[in-house]
């Protein structure tokens, strides 16, 4: 597990906030369709902040997938490397007590255990403020592209070929929270109110 060539593909974000769940949904799809060698981990990091620190320390490479606010058109896709990564993650509050993932990386740096190779595969979200919502169509359309980008990253930079599974495999994300179960089981707007503070939520009241 702690071997020097260890790589982690980490999806982060909160699945309960619409496009915020992008990173988690990408690793869910990756793990469903592809098998990877034992030294390459795939993790649903959710919003676990500091809890993720032990998983990223001393990695050979960390591949982060996340919804990132670049101020671009919704659905825009970007890949960033090295020192550019923390700067972009800074726009994005995920949490341990609002510890951004930027802070988790800074902490790893303070501990002198930063991952050696850092890449961020991100998409510009369309909607973040729909509590209980799933991915919007424009962002959902980018999931496969992000999976392909992770595969290309593993292949081109690390010489690792993923193997397509013979049959889809579930289980990385709890089946109750799988994208299908989560999005199809959502209560209707009549059943459960979806509006809130216009300063934070984008809808008029």
């Amino acid at each position, binding site marked *: 597990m702690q071997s020097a060539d260890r790589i982690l593909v980490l999806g982060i*974000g*909160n*699945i*309960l*906030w619409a496009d*915020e769940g992008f990173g988690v949904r990408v690793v869910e799809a990756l793990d469903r369709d592809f098998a990877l060698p034992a030294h390459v981990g795939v993790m*649903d*990091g*959710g*919003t*676990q902040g*500091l*809890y*993720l620190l*032990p998983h990223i320390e001393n990695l050979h490479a960390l591949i982060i997938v996340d919804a990132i*606010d670049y*101020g671009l058109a919704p659905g825009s896709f970007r890949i960033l490397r090295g020192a550019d990564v*923390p*700067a972009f993650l*800074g*726009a*994005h*509050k*995920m*949490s*341990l*007590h*609002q*510890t951004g993932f*930027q*802070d988790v990386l*800074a*902490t790893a*740096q*303070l*501990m*002198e255990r930063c991952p050696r190779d850092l890449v961020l595969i991100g998409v510009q*979200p369309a909607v*973040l*403020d729909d*509590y*209980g919502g799933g991915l919007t169509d424009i962002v959902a359309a980018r999931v496969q592209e992000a999976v392909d980008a992770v595969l290309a990253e593993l292949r081109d930079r690390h010489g690792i070929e993923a193997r397509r599974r013979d049959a889809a495999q579930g289980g990385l994300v*709890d089946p*109750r*929270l799988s994208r299908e179960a989560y999005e199809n*089981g*959502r*209560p209707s707007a009549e*059943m*459960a*109110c*979806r*509006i*809130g*503070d*216009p*300063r*934070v*939520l984008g809808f008029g*009241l």
Partner: protein
Amino acid sequence: MGIIQTPNGFSLDNSGRRVVVDPVTRIEGHMRCEVNLDENNVIRNAVSTGTMWRGLEVILKGRDPRDAWAFVERICGVCTGCHALTSVRAVEDALGIKIPKNAHLIREIMAKTLQWHDHVVHFYHLHALDWVNPVNALKADPKATSELQQMAGPNHPNSSPGYFRDVQNRLKKFVESGQLGIFKNGYWGNPAYKLPPEADLMAVTHYLEALDLQKEIVKIHTILGGKNPHPNYMVGGVPCAINMEGDMSAGAPLNMERLNFIRARIQEAHEFSKNVYIPDVIAIASFYKGWLYGGGLSATNVMDYGDYESVLGDKSTDRLPGGVILNGNWDEIHPIDPRDPTHVQEFVTHSWYTYGDDSKGLHPWDGVTEPKYELGPNAKGTRTRIEELDEGAKYSWIKAPRWKGHACEVGPLARYILAYAHGVTYVKDQVTDALGRFNALAGTSLTAKQALPSTIGRTLARALEAHYCADMMLNDWDDLIANIKAGDFATANVEKWDPRTWPSEAKGVGTVAAPRGGLGHWIRIKDGRIENYQCVVPTTWNGSPRDPAGNIGAFEASLMNTPMERPDEPVEILRTLHSFDPCLACSTHVMSPDGEELARVQVR
């Protein structure tokens, strides 16, 4: 408005300069705070507002009650396990499910691991920066730091001058790299920081040690919860089989080797809270002996549901017993019943919701979440850019929970005041010992009743509770081993797993002593599906706005009468609010496109 006397004993004056802090940083979620200062920069009115609305019914209505824990585990990054535990307790209560003893003990160990972890991370990673100046640590003399360590925490092995010099060099390199990162956005020049550089260096050093240790401790969750992050829970027990002779392969049942690993981690946690965390809080507090502000409601009204049963199913054996204390009378503890519709009620006169008749409170089983966003006549700014709130009208997305109409503080300090008043020997001994050491270092002679209701007391209670949890876990572990050795391997009761065994309608409540205070989930089940689901979380109690009678909540009360060194640097406000470990929206919102984290502070 001039001066207003609140029924709960505060004198509010909003005539002075208004200071707005938005957002309050280093907390979970988005929170805003406004205060009025008098001519001496003393806080004479405080307004706390939650700016996010999250109704769990929004995601849970119509879903399978057995799945609710998995959804609530995703609300935020810190409350994961306690929401999940509260949820399964609520469903089990509704359906009359009794869990096996092993399941109880395993859940206890998981809950206390979370408590210990949350408290340690809160103190070192978030709250310490309200007392400790990491930049100042660069000026420390490592030899003098070593001497301080040996005086404040003599049982901690890492105390040599060379050790502190190494850490100082590492810190220097980090600061010089220009990425102050976790230490940025501090008010490091503010005279509200009182520690000598040596104490600063000692605290920063222990911050690094805490970071290293916390990740070992959470391996307990990985083993007992099957995975981490996002450990598994289960209605009816725990999803964790026991086979003492089993192998160590992934997903294999719990065996002796794993249990021994857990025992070793508990022991490490125990040593750290005893030899490092508690001594650090006492040492830091002694340098702030003249700063006993921030008590607020803890001096009068505190509440907890009680938790940590020694005997499964018998609330009278709670090792942190619950109840309500009113008016600072520690000789009388009122029992609390979360199912009694007259006990816990939520009010919305000052919240952006409506019940039709807002003068009434609603019990959570009958909870209604119908937004009504309107600013009061004295608010300044617009609906989307508020400059100043009107606390005379609706001003927060947080409802106002009350016990029989009384505003109460919740959290580790509330639990410790209750346990002290209940006469829990372990807690009384801890408090007496800690105060003795504080008084010796500070040259004071404060009693528990003088010292505990304060910002420092809140921070101390959290440290003591972390250690009590580690101590209780050692007992839970012994009990678990004894029970397994007696031949009991049951970890789940699945008699009522099948919804066809359920009544057509049921309602239940689950409560947990969560890190930030008493947490309750109230559920109604109809035809096998969730009909209504309401959470009253600790920060709803502490961060609540005013109620129909005009009582202020714990955050607002705690800021009252605190002097500020510099109105545009809200060190004192942040220090006291952080001492509650607030958790608001639990969301992961984009706050601003440029990633600006520094609180905007406006002085008007």
